[in-house]
């Protein structure tokens, strides 16, 4: 501690930091929330991640170089929080044993053919921005086993490659492939049942 870091000076500095964090909340809170909400499907989780982001920003304020805008810096922290959340869920050991065994078992018959062959989908370009479709998509993601959905989202939404995934999650190549395969089988079938089967497509 140097001389100018007297208790009084510390208190002032800490007050200033909090003032800054509060003005960040005022200015960037909604933008961060929108970002979080687009990446995670539960509102409360998005709020928690935004909260963690502001607290972390306050604590690592010294590291802000001023090179990028405050918002860019905050979004970078938030993205880190989102990835870390998925990572923790993905490496959770709470999943029932056997979940990952024989992963494609329920989708294929003994002769290795589809039990329920994929039907034709009508996929107009704009449906992804349709609020109703988004709710169905979120619902399907939420119904997937959490440890599988988390890996899938790290891959498809956060864009991590398989090497990065293996390192961060500390899982084998085979386990990673099985989880991504199973996620795609589950999500595809869920979307078919809950969206495409009800939109009157032709076979």
């Amino acid at each position, binding site marked *: 501690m140097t001389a100018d870091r007297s208790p009084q000076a510390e208190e002032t500095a800490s007050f200033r930091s909090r003032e800054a964090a509060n003005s960040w909340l005022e200015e960037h809170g909604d933008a961060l929330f*929108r970002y979080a909400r687009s990446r995670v499907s539960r509102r409360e989780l998005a709020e928690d991640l935004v909260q963690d982001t502001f607290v972390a920003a306050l604590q690592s304020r010294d590291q802000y170089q001023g090179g990028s805008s405050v918002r860019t810096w905050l979004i970078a922290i938030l993205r880190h929080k989102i990835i870390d959340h998925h990572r923790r869920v993905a490496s959770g050991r709470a999943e029932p044993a056997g979940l990952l065994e024989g992963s494609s078992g329920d989708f294929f018959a003994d002769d290795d053919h589809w039990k329920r062959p994929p039907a034709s989908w009508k996929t107009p370009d704009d449906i992804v921005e349709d609020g109703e479709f988004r709710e169905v998509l979120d619902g399907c993601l939420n119904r997937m086993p959490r440890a599988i959905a988390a890996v899938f989202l790290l891959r498809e939404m956060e864009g991590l490659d398989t090497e990065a995934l293996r390192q961060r999650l500390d899982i084998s190549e085979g386990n990673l492939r099985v989880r991504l*395969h199973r996620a795609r089988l589950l999500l595809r079938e869920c979307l078919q049942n809950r969206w495409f089967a009800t939109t009157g497509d032709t076979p």
Partner: protein
Amino acid sequence: MSRRGGLLWALTLRCRTASELLSRELDEPLNKMEWLGVRGHLISCRSCRRFRRQIQWIRKAIRIRGESHTYSKTKDAALTEEARRRIARAIQDAEPDSK
């Protein structure tokens, strides 16, 4: 023998294996035999052709979902007052510049 990865394996693989390879192909390149096997299978299997198209489409849909903050104008566009107060409180309680 249809040893996994051999020529006979590639020529006779079925939907279960094809779907594994089609999924993996979205994440990393297949080797020649795997590529050959899955292409051969797709020629004769409409279900797996659909599976391939659909998981590619799902990838696109998830990416767009992840970018939705750029056009979102729904109820999710802003923090609720309650959440905002909670976050402000967390900022007050946090230890700034903790080392």
